[in-house]
């Protein structure tokens, strides 16, 4: 316990602590600080529940015919957002199908796209990574993904 630390041990421990902090680059700390922008946001955070690339990696088999399409699924308690990357565009579907607006957040700002009655949306060109999607349903519900890097 604390009483057991002599001066040398305390100095050594502090030296270690300072080194551990100095090893962390400033951009990394800034990334954390910037995340506060999402604090109190009125949206449900959807978790990444499927990633074709991760699954393919775990198979440890190179299958070139399936490598060109990347599929991702984000799931929240109330709805899912399915994404498919192909031919320079990002196609998506909100499940269960419903209309609304899709916000695409990137480092440089935010753009919006319509989501049709069938829950479909298309982003072209593919947003610069990393990006984050937020779906605002017409009925008022709001769900966002984590940061996506393609």
């Amino acid at each position: 316990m604390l009483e057991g630390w002599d001066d040398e041990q305390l100095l050594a421990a502090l030296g270690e602590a300072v080194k551990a902090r100095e090893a962390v680059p400033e951009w990394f700390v800034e990334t954390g600080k910037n995340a506060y922008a999402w604090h109190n946001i009125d949206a449900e955070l959807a978790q990444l529940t499927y990633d074709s690339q991760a699954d393919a990696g775990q198979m440890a088999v190179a299958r070139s015919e399936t490598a060109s399409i990347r599929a991702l699924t984000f799931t929240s308690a109330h709805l899912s957002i399915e994404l498919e990357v192909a031919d320079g565009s990002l196609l998506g579907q909100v499940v269960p199908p419903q209309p609304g607006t899709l916000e695409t957040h990137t480092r440089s700002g935010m753009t919006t796209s319509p989501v049709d009655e069938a829950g479909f949306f298309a982003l072209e060109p593919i947003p610069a990574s990393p990006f984050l999607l937020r779906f605002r349903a017409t009925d008022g519900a709001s769900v966002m993904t984590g940061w996506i890097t393609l």
Partner: protein
Amino acid sequence: MGLKASRPSLAGYDDSATAALISRAAASDHGAWDELVERYAPLVWSICMGFRLGHRDVEDVAQNVWLLLAEQLGRLPEPAELPGWLARTTRRECRRVVTSAGGPDTVIGEEIVMAERNAVLRAAFAQLPPRCQSLIGMLTSDPPCSYAEISTTLGIPVESIAPQRACCLERMRGSMALLGLAEAGANPPGGGPGA
């Protein structure tokens, strides 16, 4: 409320306790959030390094770990367990971006205890008066500065360095006790029982 936040208020130091920082950050105090990040970024960083992730993956993990924390701030099951929550979340995010199977062999409990200990040590150091910070900073630099060097740089006689060092370290012990190092289950470095 967490254990640390429920301890009696002593000279305002308990404001630096993790649970108090979480409450303040949840109540839209941006400064408290920044301090939380400063405090625990080394924990998140060291776990990413353990997975040997590249720059892009580290950035990806960091963004999502802090996004999750920002989103869940007001709903963490036990604010005092933030280091554990961060470590678990970081490891999960690291595994997500690592395409090959496996991960580091480090024991997660050790990471958390070390991160908590280091955070308290840095916080206690930050509370020292500037003259103590200069002196202790020189004494802990790697390689350590000689007394002659310290004397020249700080303008204090060589013979008063040892007493000042003892005085500054005593102050640090006081701050650390208030910051709750004992609760972090810390053992002295080097494994010896000490005095």
